[in-house]
């Protein structure tokens, strides 16, 4: 009896959409759970439910037919989703919604529900056609993923906070150490200066003052270290400018003109002290020899980058010197030679006629 009514029903539906029996058989036999409701009856009852639907919800056909679909809902069904579904039906529009539904035995499943109106040729709604799909696995997997994601985000948040605290401690420590190094260098300089004043012997005092100039060069390096955001790099150009101006100013001589053409050339911070000491020797040497006996003149400093090589060129317009004889001898020359080797740098003097030109070539930071 029931079966027969269903046949008539599908015949009626299929007659109205203009299709034949193969379609009816497909709906009845498909593994996709499907129901058809009749909005023209009171409370839009289910008028057809295929076997797949009965299997999904656990109800027999006679428990299904004549009831509104909401009998599948339960206490944990999302009210908002239900409201969306109701609104779509009222607006006679198709809708896709995931609903938590309840089986006959009280167990739940996630139902990917698709409801669409079926209209007659004159546009009037004849039926609602609803397909269901059990997507419990997908929803649970999503929930699991969401929970894992939240968990990981929490871990990341906690770890980031730890790292930020650690970084702050390190930054504080770096500032503290930097401060102490600067203070100690200042003290070393002060000690040497005070001692130099107390030495009556002129040549001994000159030696100590030379020493002091080297300590001052280190101090100048240190003032510039850690000024950049990148503490691993050091601007040799700005430093060379600083040091040369300082040394010239220290001579108290306004008859030596400094000409500068200085580009920013970055070297490794680890190389800064060696470069500073070499440059100190070169500048002090130029001032002592090129502008001796109050001879006025011009000192030209040029710093530029040439591919992977940085170059510092120091040119004076003094009397020049015997390049061959100048090699070796003083501790200054030895310092320049050894420190150049350490830096993988090359320092070359030549007569520039007039004056002397010294060119220092060194690797830049990569």
């Amino acid at each position: 009896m029931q079966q027969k009514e269903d046949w008539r029903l599908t015949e009626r539906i299929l007659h109205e959409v203009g299709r034949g029996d193969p379609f009816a058989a497909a709906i009845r036999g498909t593994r996709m759970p499907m129901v058809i409701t009749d909005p023209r009856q009171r409370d839009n009852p289910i008028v057809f439910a295929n076997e797949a639907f009965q299997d999904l919800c656990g109800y027999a056909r006679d428990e299904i037919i004549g009831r509104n679909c909401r009998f599948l809902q339960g206490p944990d069904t999302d009210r908002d989703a239900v409201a969306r579904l109701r609104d779509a039906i009222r607006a006679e529009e198709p809708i896709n919604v995931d609903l938590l539904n309840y089986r006959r035995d009280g167990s739940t499943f996630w139902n990917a529900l698709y409801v669409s109106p079926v209209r007659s040729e004159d546009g009037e709604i004849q039926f609602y056609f609803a397909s269901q799909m059990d997507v419990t696995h997908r929803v649970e997997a999503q929930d699991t993923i969401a929970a894992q994601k939240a968990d990981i985000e929490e871990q990341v948040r906690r770890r980031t906070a730890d790292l930020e605290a650690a970084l702050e401690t390190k930054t504080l420590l770096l500032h503290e150490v930097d401060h102490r190094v600067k203070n100690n260098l200042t003290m070393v300089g002060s000690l040497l200066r005070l001692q130099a004043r107390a030495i009556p012997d002129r040549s001994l005092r000159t030696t100590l003052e030379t020493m002091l100039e080297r300590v001052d060069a280190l101090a100048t390096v240190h003032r510039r270290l850690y000024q950049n955001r990148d503490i691993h790099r050091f601007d040799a150009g700005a430093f060379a400018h600083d040091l040369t101006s300082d040394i010239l100013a220290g001579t108290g001589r306004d008859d030596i003109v400094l000409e500068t053409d200085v580009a920013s050339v970055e070297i490794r911070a680890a190389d800064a002290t060696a470069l500073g000491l070499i440059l100190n020797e070169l500048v002090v040497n130029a001032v002592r020899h090129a502008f001796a006996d109050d001879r006025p003149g011009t000192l030209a400093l040029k710093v530029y980058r040439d591919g992977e090589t940085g170059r510092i060129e120091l040119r004076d317009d003094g009397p020049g010197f015997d390049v061959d004889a100048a090699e070796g001898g003083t501790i200054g020359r030895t310092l320049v030679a050894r420190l150049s080797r350490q830096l993988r740098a090359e320092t070359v003097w030549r007569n520039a006629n007039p004056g002397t030109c010294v060119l220092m070539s060194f690797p830049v930071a990569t």
Partner: protein
Amino acid sequence: MKDKRLPHPPLRVLIVEDEALLAMDIEAIVADCGHDVVAEAASLVEVGALHGLAPPDLAFVDIQLAEGSNGLDVAALIRRQWTDTAVVFVTANPKKVPDDFAGAYGIIPKPFSRSGLMAAMRYIEEGLCDPPPVSQPPRSFLTSPAVRADWAAAGG
């Protein structure tokens, strides 16, 4: 500020530094530059004790001082005590000085060199006695924005 009587060299210099070695060193360099160190102090309290002193033209002030006192407070006290004394901070941590230099004349970053300090001293002398200075600004001295603005205004 405009009609302030300009000082004449030798400048009267106050040194506020809690590290005895550095105080001695700065004093010697100031003397080498031909100026007079009229007093030294190691803390805020010691600066306060100098209130009877005739106004110094210039004060070199360390930021971290003895007895937990601070160079910024010393600068404020100096301004109350003597009005026209130019304060120059001498510090290993120039970043701790506010952007407006807390009303100070300038900053000498530590570690300083003899040549750097002498160059700064010469520049400060020109700036105080016959502004604006004719020398190139030395790398060892940071002039306060307010003082630079005054010089720019005076220069037209």
